[in-house]
């Protein structure tokens, strides 16, 4: 070995050691990079591909709607929508034929046409039943798929239809509380979750009372052969609506029914001349302003002539009547004279104070605007005194009556829960003494006047009948009537206001060929109160001699 060679070798080694280190460093760095990448991959969550074609949801989830006792009025369940992807379809005709074997009412021609157009998505049918879905799945046709969508169902159907409202195919609220929920999303957020962990909105409605009112109105409609009927029950102290029915109604599960004009909500969307129930307001106004007292009397022996109009009494007594008599005999002449005594301006101002002259709205939407005469002349005051010439929605009338029976507080009706102390925050619009007097008159009318048939045993009902002639063409027609009964119970400490209305009840044998409110609207209210009293927890009171302590009740103690 030569020294030179060994020297050269050593130099070579020294040089290659440098390269060797660089190579090692490069390897180390790349392995480090790989390691870091591996660790970072390990930390990122693995997105597991959800299997199948059921994972897309296009519709929004809506909160459940419950009545005040937690009974379900509306909820979401999942339903499948069937679609086809024309790009994946192999035999169009075969596919259409097989699908139509499961869905017999399918428009095959239209579907075939759509498939030929060759888009990537053709919706075939929404809201499949699980049964249909399974059958279509069994077909095993390529190119078909399902999308899971929420579908709104209303288990109680038409019973609460007008209040709850309905949604469109995309689960958007179109009417009633459903629309209100869409406009106020905070409602569902503030509410406690239901037992499935979802959102829920609780209403003031009582499903039991709602059912009773509806059933009694259905009975009344068929017994008196009325064209339509409507009724509302409101808690006078809180303004909570416990029941609201308008017949004919619609089933929100079949939203197309809502388009029928005849099924509109007459309580809020129709305006009517309500007739003699307005005398309650006239007398309240006169008493509140002090222009009359319960002891005042008015000459009702002769009709009033204004221009070419003559105002007469239906239950004419042809003599001087005191204020209670005007109320219980429903004297048009007396009411008109009281309103004139009150004065045109004060009469108008009183009705305005009760909110009857302006449009008002609730959670289920705006009420139809009242039709107020303009200019408001002496004749208007005279006719409005007994309920003609001013058209209002029945719910608005009920709202205006609340202060007259709850001690004078202007409580607004609501469909959401509200505590009973609410009345203390509401502004006072009439004196407590006026409210007291009106309640006495209402009770008197049920004991001795036109409302006798409304006296539900034990529930101290008080009320006023109203029989209005409807305008047919350009004249009031004596045979087409709108009867109503405006009542509160129990009159010694009112808890609930009940207003019902029957549209064109006929003279039937059951009513001895009469068609006035006293024989159809009043007994209907009597039946309603008798049944909703226990449901709403109103304690019946009977004189001691009628109270029978039941042996069987005692035996079960």
């Amino acid at each position: 070995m030569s020294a030179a060679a060994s020297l050269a070798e050593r130099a070579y080694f020294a040089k290659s050691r440098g390269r060797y280190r660089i190579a090692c460093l490069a390897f180390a760095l790349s392995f480090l990079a790989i390691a870091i990448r591996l660790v970072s991959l390990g930390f990122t969550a693995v997105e597991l591909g959800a299997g199948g074609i059921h994972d897309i949801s296009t519709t929004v989830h809506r909160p459940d709607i419950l009545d005040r006792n937690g009974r379900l009025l509306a909820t979401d369940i999942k339903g499948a929508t069937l679609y086809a992807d024309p790009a994946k379809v192999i035999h169009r005709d075969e596919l259409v034929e097989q699908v139509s074997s499961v869905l017999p009412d399918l428009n095959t021609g239209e579907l075939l046409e759509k498939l030929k157009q060759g888009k990537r998505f053709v919706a075939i049918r929404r809201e499949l039943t699980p049964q249909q879905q399974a059958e279509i799945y069994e077909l095993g046709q390529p190119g078909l798929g399902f999308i899971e969508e929420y579908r709104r169902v209303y288990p109680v159907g038409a019973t609460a239809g007008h209040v709850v409202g309905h949604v469109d195919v995309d689960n958007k609220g179109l009417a009633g509380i459903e629309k209100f929920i869409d406009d106020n999303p905070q409602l569902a957020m503030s509410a406690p979750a239901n037992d499935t962990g979802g959102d829920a909105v609780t209403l003031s409605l009582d499903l039991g009372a709602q059912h009773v009112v509806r059933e009694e109105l259905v009975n009344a409609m068929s017994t008196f052969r009325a064209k339509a009927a409507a009724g509302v029950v409101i808690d006078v102290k809180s303004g909570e609506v416990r029941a609201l029915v308008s017949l004919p109604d619609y089933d929100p599960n079949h939203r197309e029914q809502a388009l029928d004009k005849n099924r509109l909500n007459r309580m809020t969307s129709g305006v009517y001349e309500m007739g003699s129930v307005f005398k309650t307001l006239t007398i309240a106004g006169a008493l509140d302003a002090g222009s009359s007292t319960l002891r005042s009397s008015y000459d009702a022996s002769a009709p009033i002539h204004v221009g070419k109009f003559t105002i007469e009494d239906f239950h004419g007594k042809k003599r001087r009547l005191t204020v209670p008599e005007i109320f219980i005999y429903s004297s048009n002449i007396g009411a008109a004279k009281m309103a004139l005594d009150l004065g045109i301006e004060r009469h108008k101002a009183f009705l305005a104070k009760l909110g009857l002259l302006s449009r008002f709205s609730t959670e289920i939407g705006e009420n139809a605007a009242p039709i107020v005469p303009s200019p408001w002349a002496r004749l208007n005051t005279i006719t409005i005194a007994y309920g003609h010439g001013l058209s209002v929605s029945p719910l608005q009338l009920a709202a205006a009556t609340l202060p007259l029976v709850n001690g004078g507080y202007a409580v607004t009706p609501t469909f959401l829960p509200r505590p009973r102390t609410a009345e203390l925050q509401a502004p006072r619009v009439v004196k407590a003494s006026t409210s007291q007097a009106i309640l006495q008159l209402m009770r008197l009318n049920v004991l001795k006047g036109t409302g006798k048939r409304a006296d539900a045993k034990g529930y101290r009902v008080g009320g006023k009948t109203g029989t209005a002639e409807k305008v047919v063409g350009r004249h009031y027609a004596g045979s087409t009537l709108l009867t109503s009964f405006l009542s509160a119970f129990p009159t010694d400490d009112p808890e609930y206001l009940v207003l019902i209305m029957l549209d064109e009840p006929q003279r039937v044998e059951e009513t001895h060929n009469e068609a006035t409110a006293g024989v159809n609207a009043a007994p209907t209210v009597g039946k309603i109160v008798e049944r909703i009293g226990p449901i709403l927890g109103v304690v019946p009171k009977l004189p001691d001699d009628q109270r029978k302590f039941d042996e069987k009740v005692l035996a079960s103690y």
Partner: protein
Amino acid sequence: MLRFINICLVVALVAFAYTIYDGKYEARALDEDIAGLRKDIETEQDAVAVLRAEWSLLNRPERIERLAAKHLKLAPARPEQIVTLDRVCDRDFERVRTEPADDMLPTAIGPATKVKSVPVSGVASTPAAPANLDDDLPTATKTVKVKTVPIKASHIAKAASSAPVVMPPPVTVSPPQE
């Protein structure tokens, strides 16, 4: 020495690798479990929603009313049947007590001596103390007090004011076969 350290390191590396991969696979399995459970929960929630809708459909007032009219011998409570406790006086109890005791029992029920244990399905396999079963009695059975007990309104008032008054246990009489 160096070799020993190297061997140790290699062993340690393998051990670490094993542990880490094991942990990782376990975690992934758990992740899959979670995803599966989430899916199950969702399915169950959907099922609950359907069942709730169905429950409420079956509980429609008109249906319950129809069924009650068909199967129960009950009628809506009349106003005279609703009595608050403070309106019950001793006289009412006296009146009932002085009347023949048999009238107290609903007439359809057999002689009062036929005292049996409560026929609660599944619960009362042994003769249970009937005192506790007041609340879960099936609607078909009727609880009736022993007729000789002098009941006074004051007793009930006391019971209502939370002091536990010694009340004799109710004896249950089995109803006639329906």
